[in-house]
């Protein structure tokens, strides 16, 4: 019959994602120090901290309101490149949830796709440019393929998760075109993009949360 993700479920996902991100502090900071300016973890961690503080409130909202609120918090608390990108992503995703009570399989794919489009347009960036897009884009593509091919939800969600993780991994060999890694002589080749890694954490956690609902 498929999953129904409620705003409460999504708030729980936020709590879970926060725990993972929080835990990976040193690692992510190291990644952003190697090719960027070292602040990516501080900012995204702070953003999730604020989201967790607001989680009880988020639970009570419609998913539309919830996504709008998350977007607003992320934009203003995270700051930097990621803040405005995630903010835009959530605001765009919210639009796909207007009047919805829960998030079901196709909606979730639309949510992620809306996020991808928003990030690409706000960041003026393409897949393959060594950014967070390189985790999100393959995940969305995979999701779309699964729906097209009517892959069962469980398999689908696991594949999306893996696609996000592999996508983040694939940034290692890419040359940066956007973001601070472009300033390096070798365009960051040999290093993972921190934004892609934290994106993969979020997608993976989200898929795990949904899988639990099946």
């Amino acid at each position, binding site marked *: 019959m498929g999953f129904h993700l409620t705003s409460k479920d999504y708030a729980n996902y936020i709590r879970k994602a926060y725990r993972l991100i929080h835990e990976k502090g040193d690692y992510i*900071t190291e990644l952003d*120090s*190697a*090719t*960027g*300016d*070292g*602040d990516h973890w*501080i*900012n995204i961690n*702070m953003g999730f901290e604020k989201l967790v503080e607001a989680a009880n409130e988020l639970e009570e909202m419609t998913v539309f309101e919830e996504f709008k609120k998350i977007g607003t918090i992320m*934009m*203003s*608390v*995270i*700051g*930097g*490149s990621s*803040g*405005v*990108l995630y*903010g*835009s992503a959530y605001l765009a995703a919210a639009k796909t949830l207007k009047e919805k009570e829960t998030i079901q399989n196709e909606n979730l794919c639309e949510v992620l796709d809306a996020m991808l489009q928003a990030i690409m347009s*706000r*960041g003026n960036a393409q897949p393959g440019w060594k950014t967070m897009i390189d985790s999100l884009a393959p995940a969305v593509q995979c999701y779309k393929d699964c729906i097209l091919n009517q892959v069962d939800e469980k398999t689908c969600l696991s594949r999306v998760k893996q696609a996000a993780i592999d996508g983040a991994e694939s940034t290692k060999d890419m040359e*940066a*075109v*956007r*973001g*601070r890694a*472009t*300033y*390096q*002589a070798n365009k960051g080749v040999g290093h993972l993009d921190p934004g892609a890694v934290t994106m993969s954490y979020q997608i993976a956690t989200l898929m795990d949360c949904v899988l639990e609902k099946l």
Partner: protein
Amino acid sequence: MKKIINEPTKVVSEFLKGMEKAHPELEYTEKLEVLSRREKSDKVAVISGGGAGHEPAHAGYVGMGMLDAAVTGNVFSSPSPDRIIEAITKMNAGKGVLMIIKNYSGDIMNFGLAKDLAELEDIQVESVVVRDDVAVKDSTYSTGRRGIAGTVFVHKIAGAKAETGASLQEVKAAAEKAIENIRSMGMAMTPCTLPAVGKPGFLLGEDEVEIGMGIHGEPGVMRTTMKTAQETAEILLDKILQDYDYSNSEVALMVNGLGATPLMELYILENEIQTLLEEKQIKVYKTFVGNYMTALDMSGCSVTLMKLDEELKKLLDAPCNTPGLKIG
């Protein structure tokens, strides 16, 4: 990590509170981390900002003859659009607002979004993007050159133009003329430590320096051994002169410290730069030596040249009175 702070998450707001207390002519807007002139004047508003960690930039350049407001993000992180909009709406006097942005993806995106939102409120907003760092290859494909210490000259020029009562387009044109004529190149000797991270983001050997390192500790273009002041002057200046033709012109020179470099060393470097410029018959019209655009506690320096015409000279000489720069 030894820093005179209370809590890493509070450094920006406490710093700005301190600025407001030290400089009664400036006003701090809590939460939104905006520092602005208390007296709003009837002219084009010039605002700037970016991540914290570059003090006195940008808050230190708020005041008569330079900025009307500065918006501060977290350390090394672009401020979010809501903060930028606060500065725009607060300082707009109906003549429009010029935003001076340093060329970083984050700043471009956040200031860009703020501009879009302000325009929805019928506020005229224009922006210019400073990209003076010749360590980075210019490119229309990628983000391109970073904005570094030369940004301070752009603040000065745009601020002075705005004070004359010029229109938004005229102020923008003056800022763009400055940007066209500015090039910078830097060198770092030690890393910097983000308060919230607590340890340096990278390491440099006992005798190593990094040429072309950015003001956020982004890796540079070449790691080499420590050079003499004379050699350092040559390396930095050569890179600038290869990029832009300053020959037979008059320039403004800035020798900027990144935060932990003693003033004595900056003047020693400046002395060498002056000798080299004289040899090349580039005439220095005005010299600035000091910590203008820093990178937390990094030690190192940058050199900036701005080619001057009569208009830029006049605007550079115009009085300004800010915590970070006073002229006249």
